[in-house]
């Protein structure tokens, strides 16, 4: 072949490759299909059509919502499936969803559910009780490691699900369970007709490589295109079972596009350039000023369940492998001293963290639950308002004193040893700033404080694995329902940060917390449950094993043309009512 021709051929091929970037598609479903007999009427109104472009930091790990571990995959599940019951993240209540009615028996062990009539999956196949039975069968399948299963095992036993007729189901719990309706909000319903290959296990279905036409669900959207690492395009579900007050079928949007953008700054730029319509979970307080414009609607949805905590290492025991104590004798003495812990809590200025780190978009925390979650919020938990003088009083009562050193003074214990502390924090901007503020505050009361920042997994490994650290700062996201707090609050819990996996409670107050937590799980009277949980918060506030610092606010920036944006401070933030969102021309 002539050399010039070869060069021309290569260039043409490259241009062709460059042009063949994506499989663009437009929604093809009909907007005029008959409505279900029992359609759920949502008190809303808007206009049909338009697209919404939304960023995620990375693509989801799977489209199989039974295996969704992280919020990204759960969000896809939220869009494409429906759960037996729904959790309203604004009102914090459980609602019907695809069930027209649901009733809990007096003994709290049986839930009877009636499915809405005429509900269809996105491919047009009607929903029946058989789909629900099939879903539970797959969840409990031998050897299955799906993420829903654990929540649906009560004392290690499964729920017993029976179909009374094609639209009525009875679910029996092995023991009275306070959060029975809530855990049914975690059960997405699978279309049985699409899972008919006997040799294939449930986890082999619906991964990121599955063609979208092989998937169907009951959610407001269906996956149309997935471009690995780039974006996912969702089209409206033509069979969705929610309608607005004028009986217009929801969702209003024709299309929802998730863009996988790994950099927050790029997300911000693309939002400003008009390529994105909505920013929520990833929006930082410092971005708000940048985004102020007539075309942008900025909202603060209030304190979220994202909580910054600080704690001292209370692992007083020995490492089984090495036979050595996790902490030196002096640190065991200091950290085990209640007055020392109270002094630290009083010595930290939460307001400074709110002001300097979150620019006012956070709330000082006095318990694990934010004030926005009124059902479990403990307003009267003991508060350790910032007061260095009070902090010094606590230290004096705890046997500490101060020794002159140069121009300042240093805190010493009863044996004259200077108090030194190393704070372990994740190597990110927020944790670094919080650590610096705490360092400064504690130095003011005479402590010698250093900060050690490490990558997240290294920090976790040190806290829950080797347990060799003095104090730590961490951001955690506690679920809204206290039954899900067991791992953190039980002394045997693996996330009992200050001293995990205790074989028996290390202290009387931890034993009491264990008792209260077990009681609240089986107490059916909601008000009694709230009292029990609040007692736990009171004990935590008194004993200070953990120091709640701030609850971060959920911030939202949306283009003005996007309507019905009524964000929740909880996941899925501004997309919780995605079926109501619409775009004004």
């Amino acid at each position: 072949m002539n050399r010039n021709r070869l060069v021309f051929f290569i260039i043409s091929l490259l241009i062709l490759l460059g042009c063949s970037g994506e499989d663009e598609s437009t929604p093809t479903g009909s907007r005029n299909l008959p409505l279900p007999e029992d359609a759920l009427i949502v008190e809303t109104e808007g206009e049909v059509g338009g697209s919404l472009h939304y960023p995620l930091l990375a693509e989801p790990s799977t489209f199989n919502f039974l295996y969704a571990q992280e919020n990204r995959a759960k969000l896809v599940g939220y869009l494409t499936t429906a759960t037996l019951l729904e959790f309203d993240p604004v009102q914090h209540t459980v609602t019907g969803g695809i069930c027209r009615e649901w009733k809990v028996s007096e003994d709290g062990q049986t839930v009877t559910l009636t499915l809405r009539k005429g509900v269809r999956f996105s491919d047009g196949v009607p929903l029946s009780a058989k789909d629900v039975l099939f879903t539970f069968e797959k969840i409990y399948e031998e050897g299955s490691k799906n993420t829903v299963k654990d929540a649906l095992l009560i004392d290690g036993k499964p729920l017993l699900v029976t179909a009374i007729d094609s639209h009525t189901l009875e679910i029996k719990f092995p023991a009275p369970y306070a959060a029975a309706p809530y855990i049914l909000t975690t059960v997405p319903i699978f279309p049985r007709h699409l899972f008919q290959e006997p040799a294939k296990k449930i986890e082999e279905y619906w991964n990121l490589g599955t063609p979208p036409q092989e998937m169907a669900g009951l959610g407001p959207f269906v996956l149309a295109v997935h471009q690995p690492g780039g974006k996912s395009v969702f089209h409206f579900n033509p069979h969705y079972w929610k309608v607005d007050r004028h009986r217009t079928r929801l969702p209003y949007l024709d299309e929802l596009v998730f863009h996988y953008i790994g950099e927050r700054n790029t997300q911000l730029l693309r939002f400003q350039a008009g390529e994105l319509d909505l920013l929520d979970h990833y929006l930082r307080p410092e971005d708000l000023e940048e985004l102020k414009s007539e075309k942008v609607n900025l909202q603060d949805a209030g304190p979220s369940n994202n909580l910054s905590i600080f704690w001292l290492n209370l692992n007083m025991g020995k490492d089984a492998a090495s036979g050595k104590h996790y902490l030196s004798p002096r640190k065991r003495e200091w950290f085990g001293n209640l007055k020392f812990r109270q002094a630290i809590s009083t010595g930290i200025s939460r307001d400074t963290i709110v002001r300097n780190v979150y620019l006012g978009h956070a709330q000082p925390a006095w318990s694990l639950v934010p004030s926005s979650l009124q059902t479990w919020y403990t307003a009267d938990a003991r508060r350790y308002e910032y007061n260095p003088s009070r902090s010094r009083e606590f230290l004096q009562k705890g046997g500490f004193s101060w020794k002159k050193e140069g121009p300042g003074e240093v805190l010493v214990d009863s044996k004259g040893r200077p108090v030194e502390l190393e704070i372990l924090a994740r190597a990110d901007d927020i944790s670094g700033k919080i650590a610096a503020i705490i360092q400064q505050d504690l130095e003011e009361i005479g402590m010698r404080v250093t900060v050690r920042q490490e990558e997240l997994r290294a920090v976790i490994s040190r806290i829950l694995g080797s347990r060799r650290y003095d104090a730590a700062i961490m951001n955690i996201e506690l679920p809204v329902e206290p039954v899900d707090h067991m791992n953190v609050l039980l002394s045997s819990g693996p996330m009992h940060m200050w001293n995990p996996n205790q074989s028996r409670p290390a202290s009387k107050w931890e034993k009491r917390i264990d008792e209260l937590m077990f009681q609240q799980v089986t107490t059916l009277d909601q008000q009694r449950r709230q009292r029990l949980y609040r007692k736990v918060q009171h004990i935590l506030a008194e004993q200070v094993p953990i120091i709640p610092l701030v609850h971060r606010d959920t911030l939202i920036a949306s283009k003005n043309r996007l309507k019905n944006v009524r964000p929740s401070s909880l996941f899925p933030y501004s997309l919780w009512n995605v079926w109501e969102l619409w775009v004004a021309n």
Partner: protein
Amino acid sequence: MFRFVLRRILETIPLLFLISLLIFALFKLIPGDYLSEMELNPSIPRQRIEELRQEYGLKQPFYIQYFTWVGQVLQGNLGYSFAQQRSAVELILERLTNTVILTISALALTIIVSFPLGILTALNPGRGLDRLALFFSLIGLSLPSVLASLIFLFFAFRTGWFPIGGTGGLHHLVLPSLTLALPTIAFFVRNLRLEMIDTLRQPFVTAAAAKGLRPYRVVLHAFRNAVNPMISITGITFGGLLSGSVVVEKIFDWPGLGALVVDSILSRDLFVVLNCVLVSALLIVAANLLADLVLAWNDPRIRYQ
């Protein structure tokens, strides 16, 4: 020829072995693993995490994990992505296509811009165009790709002429490939200019001109001789473009192998990182091999040696 290709391929095997062993060892030295982050999720029982560790073989000693993986690779199984819950091969192949598109586009851009510019500057040394090209090539060589990416992002943001990131049609490819190609263009222009100046002074070029060949024929004649070192460099440059694509892909949200490597390192997705590095190493070897073949095709003297 076959023996030459085979020898080159066999030479890469110990290299790949060493690279993979090094990465494996480095991964094992860092505290924590992919599942560590799950330990912060109160809804996931510890027992489940330990079961997963057992299943993925993460609890076994380092050398057993490594040789198990090597054994699987030899059987054609490149392992599993923890983060995406599927075969690492599927994932890597998807991303590889995007990286190859980006890298080849950058390479094509390099050739399209640098070859004519290199020739023109060599034909007019010391003139305005030559000085301008040398000045800009100096900037191109000294500008870090991160800074170049940010300048292009700012340009896209201000003008709205190009999308800020992501994938799509040809317009999405322009800025990332330009960023990636910038230092290579600069390098090629400078080198080709020198080679051309040197070749144009050779007696065979003077003889060709004296025989009455048209000027463009004379230049082409010289170019064919001057381009040989550039062909060899192209093979090496391909490796540079591949590694450069890590930064560019991340900044421009181009879903390629580079971005996947960064994300997988951060999430400790061990097998994906290992396989990405192996694939990249193979690509570099293949590019060098291809460069050798093209060189042999362009210069018959090499074939006879």
